[in-house]
């Protein structure tokens, strides 16, 4: 407890905290992100209804408008969707799904990219050549296309049932494969500089193994750029997932994300039930906007050249 207080006090005096307080956008986006995180984590308890439990869903209540419109019911604050599910509840679960995929794929991309970047930079030679060539090839295609094709190909190559079961990890893998290059390039660059520093030489001289030098000594020094890239690419990952799910690829329909909800709403757009697609759309925009604003601030705050 005491160390926590101490750390908090030290953090309040840091440059980062100072720059955070001075930027209203950063504070607002951080608060919004906290709200989103609480909503996503608490979705099963906060949602007024369990949208996946058919017993609580009444088909009679399908397509009710939001509560403030005529024919709206207070029970359903933002109305209901085509299957009579409470839109608030479905959206909370959708947000949870979107964030889950966004975070998981960012972590995986980071893991792949940082590892390959460290190895490429430290080992050099043909290993470096191979990895960076692969990165070049990858970089000549836009991320969304790579993700789309990986996910699409899995549908062609794998048997249907297996694909259904694995669709969640496949989306995560597809997005990670589409976004690892940025980490690899940055980390390789920093590693090339760090590996000739005295502390690395010293570690090598006392007989440390390569893996241990990389993990214990080089890795901590590459973390700050990686953190910035990660923050900004969570936004991209959430968008990519939403797009895949909107196109009918992506996460399975049984566990819809915000993108899936927008797709379902889009199908009934012309019968006048705009809220089914607009509400999840607004939630998605708010989420990505908050991540991007926060990421922009973090990039500038951690960039020593701008100080």
């Amino acid at each position, binding site marked *: 407890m005491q160390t926590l207080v101490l750390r908090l006090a030290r953090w309040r005096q840091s440059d980062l905290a100072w720059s955070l307080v001075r930027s209203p956008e950063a504070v607002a986006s951080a608060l919004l992100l906290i709200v989103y995180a609480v909503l996503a984590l608490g979705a099963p308890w906060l949602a007024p209804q369990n949208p996946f439990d058919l017993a609580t869903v009444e088909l009679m209540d399908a397509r009710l408008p939001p509560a403030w419109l005529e024919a709206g019911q207070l029970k359903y604050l933002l109305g209901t969707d085509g299957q009579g599910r409470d839109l608030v509840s479905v959206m909370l679960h959708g947000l949870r799904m979107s964030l889950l995929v966004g975070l998981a794929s960012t972590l995986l991309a980071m893991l792949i990219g940082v590892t390959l970047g460290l190895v490429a930079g430290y080992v050099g030679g043909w290993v470096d050549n191979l990895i960076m*060539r692969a990165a070049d090839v990858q970089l*000549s295609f836009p991320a*969304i*296309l790579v993700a789309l094709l990986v996910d699409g190909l899995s549908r*062609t*190559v794998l048997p249907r049932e297996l694909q259904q079961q694995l669709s969640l990890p496949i989306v995560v893998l597809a997005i990670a494969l589409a976004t690892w290059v940025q980490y690899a390039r940055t980390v390789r660059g920093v590693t090339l500089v760090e590996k000739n520093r005295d502390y690395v030489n010293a570690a090598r001289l006392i007989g440390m193994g390569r893996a241990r030098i990389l993990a214990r000594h080089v890795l901590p020094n590459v973390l700050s750029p990686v953190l910035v890239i990660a923050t900004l690419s969570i936004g991209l990952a959430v968008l990519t997932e939403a*797009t895949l799910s909107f196109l009918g690829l992506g996460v399975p329909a049984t566990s819809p994300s915000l993108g899936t909800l*927008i797709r379902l709403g*889009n199908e009934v757009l012309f019968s006048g039930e705009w809220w089914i697609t607009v509400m999840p759309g607004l939630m998605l925009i708010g989420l990505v906007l908050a991540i991007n*604003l926060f990421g922009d601030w973090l990039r500038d705050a951690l960039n020593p050249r701008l100080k």
Partner: protein
Amino acid sequence: MLRFILGRLANGLLVMAVVSLLSFALFNFTGDPVNNLTGDSATLAEKQQLRAALGLDQPLPVQYLKFVGRALQGEFGVSYRNLEPVSQLILSRLPATLELSAVAALLALGLGIPMGVYAGIRPRALGARGLQTVSLIGVSVPSFVTGIGLILLFSVGLNWLPSYGRGEVVQLGAWSTGLLGASGWKAIVMPAITLALFQLTLFMRLTRTQMMEVMKSEYIKFARARGLRERAVHFRHALRNTLIPIITVAGLQLGSMVAFSIITESVFQWPGLGLLIIQAITFSDVPVIAAYLLLVAALFVLINAVVDLLYVVVDPRLRVAR
């Protein structure tokens, strides 16, 4: 210079080799084409005969080379779904996508760069700050949400513009164009805006940053000191020196327009390549997917090559160096 071009060329060939291997593998390891073509009643001998006729009894490297040879001649087999030759299918869909991408690209470049110049010259002005805020929203709104929003407003609400299709199309030889009639233009407005919006904000932000840097340089001061008019300083001296990064990004973004058109085309049911590939993926239409893979890869390799050459045109310094 030569070394540079050869290096790029090798890189492009490598991309094509990897992608062609991938699409060849797709053909070979997703089910047995012989079983797909023959019914259950075919005897083993008949299957063997067909296998030999299709060249499937030959070693894999030979098959791969033959596959590449056929692909170079534009032969990709027959679509599993609607039994048309894939090359025909693609050619009939290509004009729609290219028209959409071209209109969107013009919109993005034509508006994005001037807006960026404006915002970059006086970054603290109210208008410039407004543009910056709007652009951040533009980057954060996924394009399918933009498209749905436009449909809600202009098709469902106001009933001004059609929400799907290309409108009336005129055939000019092999090319079908929607840009000759009012209905075609009406149909392209919303898809083009949807597709352009993200790139537009990107060009604007990029031009702005570059302009802000260039405006601080000595030669701008000197140009002003020579008494040149502001417009000449901004566009002939400043903008020209920002063009290298802009061309790079613009070139790469034109490629991604074709990729992003997949999303736009799905929202507006625009009958182009993007819709074709989404349908092909849904129905596991392997020949179409394989052909699309190769086509898109070739397109990106081509774009990258053109971007590299454009550098040399724009920046004379690169002609001597390297």
